[in-house]
């Protein structure tokens, strides 16, 4: 019985991870920019949601139409000022440009907000639906639903639209993409901005559940990387499935091994998957070596 | 028996539903130059992968000087004296040309001074001397092919597998390259060479193996091959042409 509840809780938790991971899979998985600012983008989104709530009394679900837009613009800015200049550079250069950027973002917020914990209180923050013996959190269900929809839309977008193909082509060979008439710079900007906007959506949906603070990005970053790699680089359905797996692994192992060990469980799974199936669960074989 | 350098026995390699190499056997004698020709996608490069240990065959064996080397790692095979080049060149981009070649030379020389000496000779031999100190990443395609050859030579192999090293060379340069390869053979090397350049293949090879859709469809002296109707049909497209 507990196992059923744990699984359901884990799947719902996975839905939230998926939201963060889908953005990262676009930036890291598809475009191959190792982006250590992704967690901080979520953090910025959460603070924005908080400010809108505090300043204008906006319900987070209304901010859903504002925050992602703002994050989109922030994404454009980050891309133009920093990321564009490290595209095509070795991974280590990207890692450190984004690590530096991440330090800047979290400490700028710290300087301004002084590290206090901020959260929004909605009437539905702790609402639950009970189906038989199983409890389902309402904000979690909303997050899960949106995450599933986004995953589907993004998947179709990348697979079938010309823009989606242009994005994939750009990853695989930038020069050739240019020679096809693709505006590579714009593709990068778009992708990074969309990825950031997705982080924004995740942030909004997290806000009714979790408080935010300047260094919260770290907590999400590693999980997101784990999910993206587990699911298979650049695979959108992979990000969803990977997130659900991690979510369930987390709740189940936290229950049986103790909360202190739960991360250990998914790191072990992560390592095993990478060793035995480096392309991840849904990834294209060999594509991980681009 | 000693005269037999390389023996390939019924090699087969499948990729999913596609059989890239099917049941291919041939032998290479000491100091021989064996040419391999065949249309694009015939399985030539795959054959080299199988011999040099980069791919594991689904069936068949490879013998180097009588020793079974099937399934051995590329580095072990190279140590035993068989070195190959890559059709799609793989330079060590950030190293200079000379350093690239030194990596090869280190296989048999443990000291830097010795290795450099070997490398310098080889670089000169393939005509890359003026570029010796340039990072390999900046070389144009023709020079990269020469670099492939130079690195392989620096390992001082007994048998050398060359995969289209003449691509991108002008006719005059091809002439020089033919001379170089001849001299290498005279120096004691056994060579297997994949090339689409007919003049080169025909003038260099002692024997030629022709592949088509993964299978060996003919083997013989260049002359015999040039008259084989199946070869002409598959490879030359109905009429014989010498570029």
């Amino acid at each position, binding site marked *: 019985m507990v196992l059923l509840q744990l699984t359901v809780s884990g799947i719902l938790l996975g839905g939230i991870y998926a939201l963060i991971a889908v953005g990262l899979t676009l930036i890291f998985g598809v475009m191959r920019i190792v982006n250590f600012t992704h967690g901080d983008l979520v953090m910025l989104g959460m603070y924005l949601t908080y400010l809108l709530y505090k300043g204008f009394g906006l319900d987070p679900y209304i901010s859903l139409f504002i925050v992602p837009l703002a994050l989109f613009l922030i994404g454009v800015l980050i891309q133009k000022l920093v990321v564009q200049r490290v595209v095509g550079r070795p991974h280590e250069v990207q890692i450190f440009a984004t690590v530096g950027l991440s330090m800047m973002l979290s400490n700028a917020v710290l300087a301004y907000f002084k590290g206090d914990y901020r959260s929004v209180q909605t009437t539905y923050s702790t609402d639950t639906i009970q189906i038989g013996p199983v409890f389902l959190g309402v904000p979690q269900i909303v997050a899960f639903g949106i995450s599933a929809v986004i995953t589907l839309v993004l998947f179709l977008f990348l697979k079938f639209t010309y823009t989606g*193909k242009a994005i994939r*082509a750009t990853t695989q060979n930038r*020069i*050739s993409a240019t*020679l096809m008439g693709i505006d590579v710079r714009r593709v990068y900007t778009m992708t990074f901005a969309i990825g950031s906007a997705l982080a924004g959506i995740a942030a909004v949906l997290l806000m009714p559940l979790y408080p935010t603070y300047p260094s919260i990005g770290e907590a999400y970053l590693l999980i997101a990387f784990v999910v993206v790699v587990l699911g298979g680089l650049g695979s959108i359905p992979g990000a969803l499935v990977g997130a659900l797996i991690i979510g369930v692994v987390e709740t189940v192992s936290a229950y049986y091994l103790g909360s202190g060990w739960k991360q250990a469980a998914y790191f072990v799974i992560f390592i095993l998957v990478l060793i035995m199936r480096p392309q991840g669960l849904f990834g294209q074989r060999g594509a991980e070596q681009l | 028996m000693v005269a037999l350098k390389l023996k390939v026995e019924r090699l087969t390699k499948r990729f999913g539903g596609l059989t890239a190499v099917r049941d291919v056997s041939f032998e290479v004698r000491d100091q021989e130059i064996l040419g391999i020709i065949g249309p*694009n996608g015939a399985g030539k490069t795959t054959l080299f992968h199988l011999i040099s240990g980069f791919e594991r065959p689904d069936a068949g064996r490879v013998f180097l000087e009588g020793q079974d080397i099937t399934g051995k790692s590329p580095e072990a095979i190279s140590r035993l004296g068989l070195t190959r080049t890559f059709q799609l060149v793989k330079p060590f981009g950030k190293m200079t040309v000379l350093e690239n070649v030194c990596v090869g030379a280190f296989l048999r020389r443990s000291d830097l001074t010795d290795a450099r000496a070997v490398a310098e000779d080889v670089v000169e031999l393939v005509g890359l001397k003026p570029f010796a100190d340039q990072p390999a990443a900046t070389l144009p395609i023709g020079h990269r092919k020469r670099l492939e050859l130079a690195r392989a030579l620096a390992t001082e192999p007994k048998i050398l597998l060359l995969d*289209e090293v003449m691509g991108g060379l*002008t006719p005059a340069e091809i002439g020089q390259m033919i001379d170089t390869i001849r001299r290498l053979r005279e120096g004691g090397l056994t060579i297997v060479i994949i090339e689409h350049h*007919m003049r080169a293949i025909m003038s260099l090879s002692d024997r030629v193996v022709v592949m088509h859709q993964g299978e060996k469809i003919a083997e013989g002296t260049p002359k015999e091959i040039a008259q084989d109707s199946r070869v002409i049909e598959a490879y030359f497209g109905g009429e014989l042409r010498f570029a």
Partner: protein
Amino acid sequence: MLKVEDLNVFYGDIQVLHEVSIEVREGEIVAILGVNAAGKTTLLNTIAGLTKKWNGTMTWMGQPLHRVPAFRRVEMGIVLVPEGRQLFPFMTVLENLELGAYSKAARREKERSLEFVFQLLPKLYERRHQLAGSLSGGEQQMVAIGRGLMAKPKLLMLDEPTLGLAPKIVHDVFQLIQDIRKSGVTILLVEQNMHQSLQVADRGYVLENGRVTISGSSEALLRNPTIREAYLGI
């Protein structure tokens, strides 16, 4: 149609092309010849907009190309089939070809272009669902050419298109080049296969150490004693 004057190109501080001037007129096949490292690829790349540091003038149909980024040039009809294939390895042959028709004008003609390409290169039809990265060297070269055609070029620049192709296909490619020209596309061709190139080309330029040293009609070049000795090895 395309006019390049006094072009200098640099990689960092190293100058690779020196005062190169060439011209391509509508409907022509023009060949660029030269030994390894002469700067042929660099010239094509610069026309396509891929090199960063250059000066001189380039005009396309009378319009200066100075400030036109590479991807715009494709829409203007300047299409390069690059050296070394440069496919999208984790996309299928079909997807590669479709991306060739990325620019707006080409996109409209996509279906017809596809048919044309498959007709010209039937091997590609057989392999259309295979990932481009797992094709043999020669097959990849065919995809590259096919992809270039999908872009509906006005000027098609081919950088060593027969590199690594079997004689049968080489012959087909040269045939193809002539067919393409007949369909109204102008061609700028870089080839090491001088004999055959000059047989299909109308005119040619010889690059040596980054400078144009000889130019003229194909017949003249084929007769030129320097060329016969240095390049044709006759």
